[in-house]
């Protein structure tokens, strides 16, 4: 027996060592879940080893830092000034961006508060220096020089200014083991910023970082940002993780894909990291203070930018611009100093003949109500009579059947309205619109300035007429009994067709629907004798009156404009009886 042990001593020792370690492995692997703290004995061994190994590491690290500091602080100062200028410019740019984002941050916080969303804000961080690594490729871990005595605890997130790094796995008194996101046993809940696709970030066997088991989505493009989703209860939401490098199919799960990630933080060149030691559901005081400062800076920057812009804009006005386009009354005083940077204000000139569409005549939109019309609108239907083929001259334009006395005629093609002026009556012109006479002698009347009476009796046959403004000028005379007064629009020219009963009864009448703004009153200065209107020197612009649309959908009968007044025998009776003579002016 003794010889057996002495003979196989080496092998027995080897077997004993291997069995002991296998048992130790079995005990360690029996942990409830990967990532949970080690057992006490294992932690003790780790603690001893780390305590023995890390002091020389720290010493070497400090020596390296000293050498690096001496080199960079005393010798490598060639590009310091240029870098300083670049950094200052970058700070200005970042301040502007920060100021612009401050408002969005405020709004986001308010919305989160309204919706009851619990946000995790970083309250406190502990900076730490990286003093070592695991030294193997299959274990992506780091050692930092802060531990329990500095307030650290397992599962605290570790990050840099660029992005997340990992989380604390084992924490000793003055050292901690950081499990990098590139380790195969790590897992971080992430979300793709553009597609909002959620996934789990894990490390690969070769140290690559990937989001696994992602549903195929064509919208995932290289370069898309990946953020923490907060679903792992370790990392606060919204921290940068990295960017999409490429998308490749998952060999084990066919329809799913893996998103290869380029980490935002340079995991192979880490020197200082931040450990988040405290998070809360509301912004910290410091964060609120920073936010307020950012907003104040933003306002100041905007004000400064507007001042700069105002200084660059031309300050003098153009003296040559029309007076009504240049509101500055003193512009004439500086006329002599006009230079190339004069500017003409973009004020439209005043209209020669203002109407309802002219500027400054339209009320503010806030003062109007829906459906409100600014001008009186004629609504309803009326019958129009087909006008005569040719207009009758003023002096002898009686078209009535009997003795109508018509004075002046102006038949215009557009907007002709027929009216009926009963014989023997003197009707007010205010109701002359849409007068439809059934009988009477047509009398072509003129509307002299200052008058607006229509001789011819009361009007009849008004269908759905609405009050309309009284014409400023024009007298309709000679309206015989049962006469038909034809008034053309829009020049307020009246064409009274004096006719007897059924004077134009033979002519076809068309019932039209009238709906539209009434034409503006004719200015007094513009009114003239119809006799003299034959060839006006400056005829006013033809305005479109209420559009007459026949019931049958066809266009209303056109009225031919008289080519030239031709003398005709006075009082050509066309009506049946009682046609007053034309009393031309």
């Amino acid at each position, binding site marked *: 027996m003794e010889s057996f042990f002495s003979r196989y001593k080496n092998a027995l020792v080897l077997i004993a060592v291997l069995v002991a370690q*296998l048992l*130790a492995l079995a005990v360690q692997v029996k942990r409830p879940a990967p990532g949970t703290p080690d057992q006490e004995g294992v932690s003790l061994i780790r603690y001893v*080893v780390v305590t*023995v*190994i890390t002091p020389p590491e720290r010493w070497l*690290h400090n020596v390296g830092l000293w050498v690096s500091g001496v080199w960079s602080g005393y010798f490598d100062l060639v590009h310091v000034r240029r870098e300083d200028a670049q950094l200052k410019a970058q700070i200005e740019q970042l301040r502007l961006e920060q100021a612009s984002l401050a408002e969005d941050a405020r709004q986001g916080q308010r919305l989160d508060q309204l919706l009851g969303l619990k946000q995790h804000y970083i309250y406190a961080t502990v900076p730490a220096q990286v003093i070592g690594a*695991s030294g193997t490729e299959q274990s992506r871990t780091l050692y930092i020089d802060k531990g329990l005595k500095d307030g650290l605890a397992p599962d605290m997130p570790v990050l840099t200014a660029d992005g997340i790094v990992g989380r604390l796995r084992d924490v000793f008194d003055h050292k901690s*083991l950081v499990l990098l996101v590139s380790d195969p046993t790590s897992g971080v809940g992430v979300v793709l910023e553009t597609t909002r696709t959620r996934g789990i970030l894990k490390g690969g066997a070769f140290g690559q970082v990937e989001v696994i088991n992602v549903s195929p989505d064509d919208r995932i493009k290289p370069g898309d940002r990946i953020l923490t989703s907060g679903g792992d209860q370790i990392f606060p939401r919204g921290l940068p993780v990295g960017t999409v490098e490429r998308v490749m199919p998952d060999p084990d799960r066919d329809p799913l894909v893996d998103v290869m990630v380029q980490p935002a933080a340079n995991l192979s060149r880490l020197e200082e990291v931040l450990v988040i030691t405290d998070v809360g559901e509301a912004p910290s005081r410091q964060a609120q203070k920073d936010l307020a400062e950012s907003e104040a800076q933003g306002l100041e920057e905007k004000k400064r930018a507007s001042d700069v812009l105002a200084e660059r804009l031309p300050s003098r006005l153009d003296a040559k611009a029309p007076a009504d386009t240049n509101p500055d009354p003193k512009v004439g005083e500086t006329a002599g100093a006009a230079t190339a940077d004069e500017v003409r204000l973009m004020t439209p000139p005043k209209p020669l003949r203002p109407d309802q569409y002219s500027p400054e005549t339209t009320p503010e939109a806030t003062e109007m109500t829906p459906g409100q019309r600014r001008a009186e609108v004629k609504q309803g239907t009326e019958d129009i009579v087909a006008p005569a083929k040719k207009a009758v001259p003023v002096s002898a334009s009686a078209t009535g059947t009997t003795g109508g006395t018509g004075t002046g005629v102006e038949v215009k093609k557009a907007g002709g309205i027929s009216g009926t002026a009963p014989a023997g009556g003197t009707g007010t012109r205010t109701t002359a619109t849409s007068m439809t006479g059934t009988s009477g002698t047509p009398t072509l009347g003129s509307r002299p300035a200052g008058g607006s009476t229509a001789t011819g009796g009361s009007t009849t046959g008004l269908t759905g007429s609405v009050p309309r403004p009284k014409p400023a000028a024009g007298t309709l005379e000679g309206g015989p009994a049962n006469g038909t007064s034809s008034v053309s629009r829009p020049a307020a020219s009246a064409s009274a067709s004096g006719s007897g009963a059924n004077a134009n009864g033979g002519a076809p009448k068309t019932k039209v629907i009238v709906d539209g703004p009434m034409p503006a009153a004719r200015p007094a200065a513009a009114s003239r004798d119809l006799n003299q209107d034959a060839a006006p020197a400056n005829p006013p612009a033809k305005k479109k009156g209420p559009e007459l649309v026949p019931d049958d959908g066809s266009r209303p009968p056109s009225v031919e404009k008289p080519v030239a007044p031709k003398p005709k025998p006075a009082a050509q009776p066309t009506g049946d009886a009682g046609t007053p003579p034309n009393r031309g002016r």
Partner: protein
Amino acid sequence: MIMALMASTRREADERSLPLALYVLVPVLALGIQSLASLHFPPFAMLDLPLIVVIYFAITRRSPVGATIGGALMGIAQDALTRQPLGVFGICKAVVGYVAGSLGVRIDTENHGMRLLLTFFFVLLHNGIDWVLVNHLLAEPMAWSWMREPIRAGVNALVGVVIFALLDLAKSRD
């Protein structure tokens, strides 16, 4: 050829000793440098300085028991610096230490070519055991590349030969 590799002279069979402090200082330095260098120079993780130290002590001491225990301790210490359970590298290095110590008795380990071949073989053996343990015992993902592993073994062998020569300077003949 094989016989040429065998220890045939007394000088070669002489047992040489290293200063006692070196048995403590060298492993600690190996672990520290491995940890620090791979932090600032990630490709350095391809090297395995603790394994090279284990091989050197094993073939120098020519004691399989001492090499087994020393390898196990070195491996456990290396495991302690990682996140994996203690014992993975311990098993690997214990086996390598045993084999190296056993061969050191029979082979001329002073020859640089022999050192190169032995180190190349031991690194492959170490990584093979490691891959089996991690993949099949711990069921954790671990990459194995037939292209990468020989390269890795060759690099370690080359570096190992240099380190062996440096450590030989500290030897003292009994």
